[in-house]
């Protein structure tokens, strides 16, 4: 593998910076079940990092460790050069890590705009009382937050559904709204849990374009889990491959594609 201590330049000319998040020897157990076993990898500034693996490999668990939903049984999470103590998910969010969910978790009864605005909640400093009275700081904050929300809405081309309740939207658009909510938080790292699951080809193409544009336009670091191999290989700069909770490969899409262990995990070999 290339020496990458100072970052690297991708094939399409993007400059990838230093390590922004590092997972060191992470192990996660649920009682006797070992979901993740001694996994280490890093995520660099500005890169699109994919985590792949067969069903039950522990990908979502890994994402949940990054987002603070699970606290690892062993190992350390290093973020921006500092070791991260055990944290609540909202504290992780405040640190600049936003995520979307595999099975969409939006407020169905609220409008798209309101959903996107909830992405700004971590940035709000005014008290609940001043917000209720709509005075002073609350008003200025709301205006600033709305501006960010509107930029995201414009960016993801969902202006036409701004006022539509999320519950009335088709699946593909809901996924986009969820991405919008995550983006509204202006995250340093964006975690996407199967962003293309259940989409048709056209929706997938749109989503790919949005992911690339987000990375390109805002320089957001993106970590994603995805099943569609074509998508993963096209989108990502580096790929971590997991199987049965263990890391079996890590590197550029080409390296991973030619890795024997990875091929075995996907095509299946007899376990003896």
């Amino acid at each position, binding site marked *: 593998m290339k020496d990458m201590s100072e970052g690297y330049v991708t094939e*399409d*000319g*993007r400059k990838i910076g230093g390590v922004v998040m590092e997972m060191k020897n992470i192990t996660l157990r649920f009682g006797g079940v070992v979901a993740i076993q001694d996994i280490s990898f890093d995520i660099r500034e500005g890169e699109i990092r994919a985590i792949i693996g067969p069903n039950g490999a522990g990908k979502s668990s890994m994402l949940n460790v990054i987002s603070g939903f699970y606290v690892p049984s062993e190992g350390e999470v290093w973020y921006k050069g500092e070791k991260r103590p055990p944290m609540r998910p909202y504290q992780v969010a405040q640190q600049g890590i936003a995520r979307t969910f595999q099975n969409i978790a939006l407020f169905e009864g609220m409008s798209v*705009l309101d959903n996107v605005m909830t992405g700004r909640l971590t940035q709000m400093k005014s008290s609940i009382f001043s917000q209720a009275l709509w005075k002073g700081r609350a008003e200025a904050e709301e205006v600033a937050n*709305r*501006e960010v929300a*509107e*930029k995201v*809405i*414009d*960016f993801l*081309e969902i*202006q*036409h559904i*701004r*006022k539509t309740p999320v519950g009335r939207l088709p699946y593909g658009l809901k996924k986009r709204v969820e991405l919008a909510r995550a983006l509204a938080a202006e995250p340093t790292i964006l975690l996407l849990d199967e962003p293309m699951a259940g989409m048709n080809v056209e929706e997938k193409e749109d989503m790919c*374009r949005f992911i690339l*544009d987000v990375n*390109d*336009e805002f320089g957001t670091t993106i970590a994603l889990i995805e099943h569609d191999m074509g998508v993963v290989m096209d989108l990502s700069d580096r790929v971590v491959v997991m199987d049965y909770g263990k890391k079996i490969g890590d590197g550029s899409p080409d390296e991973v594609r030619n890795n024997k262990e990875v091929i075995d995990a996907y095509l299946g070999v007899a376990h003896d």
Partner: protein
Amino acid sequence: MAQTQSGAQGLLSLPALLHRNATQYATAPAYREKEFGIWQSWTWAETAQEIEALALGLINLGVNEGDFIAIIGRNRPYLYWSMVAAQMVGAVPVPLYQDAVAEEMAYVLGHCGARFVIAGDQEQVDKVIEVQDQLHQFEHLIYLDPRGLRKYDHSHLHEYSHVQNQGRAAHDEYINELNARREKLDYDDTCVMLYTSGTTGKPKGVVLSNRNVIETSRNSAEFDHLTRGEDILSYLPMAWVGDFIFSVGQAYWCGFCVNCPESADTMMTDLREIGPTYFFAPPRVFETQLTNVMIRMEDAGKLKKAMFHHFMAHARKVGPKILDGKPVGLWDRLKYALGMGLVYGPLKDTLGFSRVRVGYTAGEAIGPEIFDFYRSLGINLKQLYGQTEATVFITAHPDGEVRADTVGVPSPGVELKIGENGEVFYRSPGVFVEYYKNPESTASTKDAEGWVATGDAGFIEEDTGHLRIIDRAKDVGKMADGSLFAPKYVENKLKFYPNILEAVVFGNGRDECTAFINIDLSAVGNWAERNNIGYASYQELARHPKVMEMIQGHVEEVNRSVAEDPMLAGCQVHRFVVLHKELDADDGEMTRTRKVRRRIVEEKYHDIITALYDGSKEVSTVTEVTYEDGRKGSIRATLEIRDAKVMPVQHAMAAE
């Protein structure tokens, strides 16, 4: 105002009109665009500054007088400014259809030899870059929305705002040059070049002079008493002559405000927020709106439904009369006023038509029921007949004389005559200068005296002076027995049914007429849902026996109505087929303005046409389709052919 007066005022070009507006109406809004959820606006004074900065930037980039600058994108103030900035520096703006594929663009860009292109976003930039190797004169590309373009090679690529900034920075250096060019602009200089959508063959570049545009804008504005207080919504393609006249010509002449929607998908919401006073739409938009209203009424509560139907029936009876200022009884007036409060007013508000003073529809014939629906609500919807070569206006309905079956009287300054074959000819100050680099076509369209052939067959009603259009002159043919064949006439009757999106009638030189029919997915889909008919695809719905039956009913009704006119009774549809796919511009079956390309359809589906005439019960066919991204695929289908009942033709009368 006399013909020469605008000349005497020195208003010989759009930049001159801009200067007048910026001085006289400095603080009035000139443009609005919804962005980031808010209507952003620019006054005439600000507009003049923006345009000047861009014009200086264009000189800085090396634009020469006489250069062509292509403009591609959705309706945005910045792109309208580009057109005027181009004129200011002595160049010719050429707006292009933004949904054109790269090859179509390559032809137009190559034909006019555009040195500069101003594009809206990445999608348009990509198309130009794709074909730039075929273009010898092309040099610089300016883009508006930087999204996704960061990594592109910027040696010939410039961001719009940067060009403006460079223009501002170089103000002192170039302002004299700009003023000199601006003052040189003459009444007979080219104002704009618009490519016709090309129902047949390659698009032709129609050259319109300042005289054409300004005279036409003035005449038409006076005809409809347009003021600088109007608000219009600009959402129709910028490459279309109508948009150029409404959003640029008339807007600059009158000094009214042009509003641009946030995106194509938000048009209906934006329409409602702006509430235009002067509105223009092809029949399709009115049809869609009416269909949506009807669908929503189906789902409304009993009381609302009853009120709606009761008052709409009353409106149909007296609404148009009240609108035309004809005598109506007091009781009917009172009831209409009550209906206005309870039904018509709220409905107009929902549609975004509360403030419409003048509404126009053109491009295609509109269904009389649709037309009457809007007029009965008190919306002054009128018909217009025009074409690019006439700078839009040939005829229009004057207020108070509106009828669905005519296209109105000649617009001010327009003379009409009917040729021997029934073709309509016109002459007006709006008649185009020439087709660019195509003297043969110019000569065959416009004669030495300035009469222009419309290509449409029609006649002038003697008692009212209204023009009635029957069909395209070249489509009007003869059946085998010598009787008149006017396919468009029948197609329009078919298309007036909400369930039928498109129809193509064949029969020239044959014994009987047959038809292709496209169902309207939203209308038929809704009907299917209400009648518990399941379907998985357009194709499946299109060949459902119940749908076939419904369409057959429509065809037979049309036959009855066609048979009433002895001249056209031969055009009754004997056999028809419901097509398995929508006719589509991407497949070349229609123009970008959604007119059917008859010859191409005939060639492409010759197997189905053969089956329509050889008496078979069904036909299997494979059709090639083009997806939006240019890839090709094919659809296989077996289509049922149905016979429709026809009324007996009174041959005795026709033969006389």
